[in-house]
């Protein structure tokens, strides 16, 4: 076979592999790390799963900010456990990502250099105790809406991680709502604190569902790979429809004067989102972008000698084990 003939044969082979691959996904089969996959599939998944993992661990920071000041022992323990859950989510997701042939070090490097993104919501500051309620209720709430469809995504390790994660996120969401409810049943000062938190977190939570469908890129391919099953606007509507009645129950007002139930559509109409603010924060100019990344970098850099020591110790142990066996 000539050189050109070989190339054609290879291209044919890849085409048939791709057809099998697409067909497997179409019939709801799972792609596993050892399976053949198109390079674009691998890259897209590394990008999305790592972005998700980074969001989990950067997301620990705004809530960790209140652990030392939690107002009761019960709340302190619950918050600590919640932040620990987020660390666990980060861990499963990094592991899922590593199966695609990238190391945790490389992934961290991408986060620290700003090459990889994480959810912009975590660049907003946590200013009062009520923010712990608002984050659980709204941020974990929006995360669930984003993530439940991923439980049946095509990449096996990601889908399985999402099943575990979603269970815990819905627990977080109830816990957050319960914090808000307690505040709303409390003194006027507590109610005001809850309302103030809702005012600050509502719009950023809506932005978590992503840019509008007109502005959103690469949605079509993501639909085929089941990384996306509904559009951003559909997810946002679902979040609003679900959350507004919950606010009503506890007597909080959604900070949107145009919010109104539409009898014809059966959905809430809502006001214009400030997309300028969205892009400002995405591009790195939110209130806490710099602090979050520098906190992560600091933890990683200060931990270097610890990780090195663990490696050196393990090597010494392995050596002395070998020496023993030799005798």
């Amino acid at each position, binding site marked *: 076979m000539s050189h050109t003939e070989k190339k054609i044969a290879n291209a044919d082979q890849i085409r048939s592999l791709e057809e099998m691959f697409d067909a497997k996904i179409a019939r709801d089969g799972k792609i596993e790390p050892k399976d053949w996959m198109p390079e674009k599939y691998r890259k897209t998944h590394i990008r999305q799963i790592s972005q998700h993992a980074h969001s989990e661990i950067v997301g620990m920071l705004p809530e960790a900010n209140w*652990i030392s000041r939690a107002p009761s022992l019960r709340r302190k323990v619950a918050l600590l456990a919640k932040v620990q859950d987020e660390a666990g989510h980060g861990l499963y997701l990094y592991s899922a990502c590593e199966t695609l042939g990238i190391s945790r070090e490389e992934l961290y490097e991408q986060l620290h250099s700003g090459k990889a993104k994480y959810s912009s919501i975590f660049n907003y500051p946590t200013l009062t*105790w009520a923010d712990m309620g608002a984050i659980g209720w709204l941020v974990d709430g929006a995360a669930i809406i984003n993530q439940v469809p991923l439980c049946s995504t095509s990449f096996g390790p990601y889908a399985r991680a999402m099943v575990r994660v979603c269970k815990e996120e819905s627990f977080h969401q109830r816990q957050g709502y319960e914090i808000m409810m307690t505040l709303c049943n*409390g003194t006027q000062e507590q109610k005001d604190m809850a309302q103030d938190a809702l005012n600050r977190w509502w719009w950023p939570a809506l932005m978590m569902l992503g840019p509008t469908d007109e502005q959103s890129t690469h949605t079509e391919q993501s639909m085929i790979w089941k990384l996306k099953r509904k559009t951003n606007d559909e997810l946002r509507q679902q979040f609003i429809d679900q959350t507004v009645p919950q606010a009503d129950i506890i007597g909080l007002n959604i900070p949107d004067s145009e919010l109104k139930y539409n009898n014809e559509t059966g959905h809430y109409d809502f006001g214009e989102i400030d997309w300028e603010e969205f892009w400002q924060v995405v591009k790195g100019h939110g209130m806490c972008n710099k602090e979050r990344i520098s*906190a992560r970098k600091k*933890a990683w850099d200060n931990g270097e000698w610890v990780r*090195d*020591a663990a490696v050196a*110790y393990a090597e*010494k142990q392995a050596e002395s084990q070998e020496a023993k066996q030799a005798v």
Partner: protein
Amino acid sequence: MTNENLIHYIHGIADNSMILGQRISELCGHGPTLETDIALTNIALDLLGQTRSYYQYVAELSPKDITEDDVAFLRKEREYKNVLLVEQPNTDFAYVIVRQYFFDVFHYLLLKELEKSKNVNFQAIAKKSLKEVSYHKRFSGDWLKRLGDGTDESKQKTQQAVNDLWVFTDELFHMTKDDQVVADAGFGVDNSTLKSEYYTMVKSLLKECKLQIPEVKYFQKGGKKGIHSEHMGYILSDMQFMQRTYPDMKW
């Protein structure tokens, strides 16, 4: 033995768990790896869980109508009876591990005795906590080995932490008047009896880690009598912030 003796005795044990739990939880999200973050958070959760059991018991014993949160958040600095060791700052990971190990060995020995208390509440809390603390001791001991016998840098940093924290170990075995009364009644533990086993265990691990055992003439004390280091005020101003700013509210 009065209820007051008993309450003060419990403070002496529970405040250690409270303040160390508070200190460790400051690290959540900032550790050297996700795995150590998760493990240290577990330890903080255990310690705070134990704290709650003790403080709930204090609330029961108290003549006033109080809750665990009043005990945790509404005392003045002088009323906290934790040892100085647990309030020492998270200077670096070596300090965190050495502080933890120095405390864990003591805590383990204490609970083993407290399990034999004539008081059923102490028996139950000690039994449950002992399982948790055995794990803490293994975690901090394993890390001490890695750090002590890892790289030159880790060895030097760990030796520094050992040298600095060693002076706080002696106070673990001090007995207040209340401690003595409660121990004599068969409810509490005479900490001074734990001392020799403690130093045997700690010194043997330090040797295994190839770390020097500090030679110290003067030890630090005060926490058990409510006289704390300068760190304590800041720990409490964080911890009590909500209760002080918004008094008498439910959260």
